[in-house]
């Protein structure tokens, strides 16, 4: 007969190992009551997470700060702390004072976007973080960075994520200066920024999302950068880009007018999106991304001033000749409308091919110039010798004019003749 293994008879080391995989603070606290062996294993917990609604049922005179403090002070080697419930700067300071030797990851819901902060050097939640100087990863939600934080250099910090922030340029800049060894930087839903210059020698991944009128300036110097996503900038300068593989530039509210990049020889994925891009910026971007395999283009208008202009014609032959490695191509509305043959296809070199193209997604927003658009679609099929899939999105076309129906019928006919490749969405 098999002896059923009971948790009771597990050696201490294994119980500790199991309990160190618990992280919800409520489960951990409840565990202290199960048995003596369990209670004695709590100090070995590696990770603690305090959820948002932890204190909904508080009774007695205890404050959230104290409760967290009590649980944290019984640990001896906590590596990860995530706190989503409310807390004060004083509470945070006392927790971190206990945790600093072992803590590697800290995630806090700061919720202080609208706090008035009178003294820049005074006790603030942001300043308290200096206590855990050895951390490797920091994530802050809803944080106010308007005064330069009183931080010493975080030598081990590799990952910094900020979600929901209100900043002043110099304060954010000073904060980044204290994190010279970052490999991952992510600043999302960030308000108040006008201009930032980032110089991080080890940065590999960078994701920036700036709210506002879309006229931020970004200068980035990180020679090993591989992936960059930027939203909300009108002026972008990234000079060392020989490792850059993924680039995404979007602007939902302003106009992108200056993009300055180094050589983009390694670029595989490029996405350009926005309401308005200056023509020089668009053509420069497309010209530099000659090696790109995956291209996503969704810009509504061009023009160098506030006036929104349609795109000038882009010759199809020239376009595909200058992007010979293109495998996946997504083109939207106004930009698709501009793509045409001009007159070049009548005299086109018989060896013209679009050799690598495998997948195309086209969104057509209006039925204007239907003939030209159909001609473009047909050319793509004709010269795209390896084309496997073409998806045409026309189902939310803007016009309710009868020409829309005609266009739709043309597309359906086109789909019918090329049904193994074309689909309509």
């Amino acid at each position: 007969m098999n002896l059923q293994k009971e948790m009771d008879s597990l050696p201490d080391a294994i119980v500790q190992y199991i309990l160190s995989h618990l992280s919800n603070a409520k489960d951990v606290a409840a565990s202290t009551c199960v048995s003596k062996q369990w209670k004695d294993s709590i100090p070995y917990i590696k990770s603690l997470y305090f959820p948002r609604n932890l204190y909904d049922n508080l009774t007695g005179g205890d404050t959230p700060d104290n409760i967290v403090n009590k649980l944290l002070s019984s640990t001896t080697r906590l590596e990860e702390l995530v706190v989503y419930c409310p807390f004060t700067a004083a509470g945070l300071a006392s927790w971190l004072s206990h945790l600093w030797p072992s803590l590697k990851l800290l995630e806090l819901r700061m919720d202080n976007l609208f706090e008035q902060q009178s003294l820049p050097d005074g006790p603030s939640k942001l300043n308290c973080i200096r206590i855990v100087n050895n951390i490797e990863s920091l994530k802050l939600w809803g944080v106010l960075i308007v005064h330069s934080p009183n931080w010493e250099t975080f030598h081990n910090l590799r990952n910094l994520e900020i979600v929901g922030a209100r900043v002043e340029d110099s304060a954010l800049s000073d904060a980044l200066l204290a994190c010279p060894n970052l490999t991952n930087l992510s600043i999302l839903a960030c308000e108040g920024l006008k201009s930032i210059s980032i110089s991080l020698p080890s940065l590999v991944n960078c994701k920036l999302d700036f709210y506002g009128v879309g006229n931020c300036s970004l200068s980035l110097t990180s020679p090993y950068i591989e992936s960059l996503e930027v939203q909300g900038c009108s002026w972008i300068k990234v000079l060392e880009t020989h490792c850059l593989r993924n680039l995404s530039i979007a602007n939902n509210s302003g106009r992108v007018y200056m993009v300055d990049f180094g050589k983009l020889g390694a670029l595989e994925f490029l996405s350009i999106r926005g309401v308005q891009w200056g023509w020089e910026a668009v053509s420069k971007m497309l010209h530099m991304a000659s090696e790109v395999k995956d291209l996503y283009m969704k810009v509504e208008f061009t023009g160098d001033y506030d006036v929104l202009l349609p795109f000038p014609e882009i010759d199809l032959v020239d376009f595909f000749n200058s992007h010979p490695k293109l495998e996946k191509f997504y083109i939207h509305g106004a930009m698709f409308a501009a793509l045409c043959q001009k007159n070049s296809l009548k005299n086109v070199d018989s060896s013209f091919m679009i050799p690598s193209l495998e997948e195309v997604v086209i969104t057509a927003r209006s039925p204007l110039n239907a003939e030209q658009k159909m001609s473009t679609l047909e050319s793509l099929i004709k010269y795209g010798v390896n084309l496997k899939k073409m998806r045409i999105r026309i189902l939310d076309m803007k016009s309710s004019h009868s020409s829309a129906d005609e266009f739709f019928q043309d597309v359906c006919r086109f789909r019918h003749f090329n049904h193994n490749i074309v689909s309509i969405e």
Partner: protein
Amino acid sequence: MSSKKMITLKSSDGRIFEVEEAVAQESQTIKHMIEDGYGNSVIPLPNVTGRILYKIIEFCTKHVAVEEDIKQKSVEPTVVVEDVKQKSVEPTVVEDVKQKSVELPVDDDAWDAEPSDIDEWDAQFIDVDESTMFELIVASNYLNIKRLMDLSAQAIADMMKDKTVEEIRKIFNIQNDFTPEEEMKIRNENSWAYE
């Protein structure tokens, strides 16, 4: 296909398993034994039953295959069954092995799985009763297989989520060794954590 070195393992209840060296070396304990020169004879594992050793070999085989797949993109399933049949060994061992190797999982799908499916495979692997989970964690601790230790520890910890103290004691058959006064004191300290 190059012939791969096989390691022979013997469980506490006398069952014999032949595994590839790479698979056996997922266990740091066995790896050290091989390095110390014991790889050519039968390695006894008196702390691991045959039932659990079988599962552990299944786990290690799968993870070695996934790692090789990542490295080479094309994987030839190194099926123990065939190797064993061809190898010339003592008749008794061969018979045992033949019997056991038929039982060993030769899941064709498993060999083709993408690395990202490994988490799903692990989740299904560890979806067993508590008793087996405890045996797995003890055995993987003895054999020093970190990945399996983490998987089983996390699975056991997950079983504790949102349970009351009484429920936890019941599931894991734990004796409450606190006096009523001690227990009351602990509950008061962290009253927010209890229903």
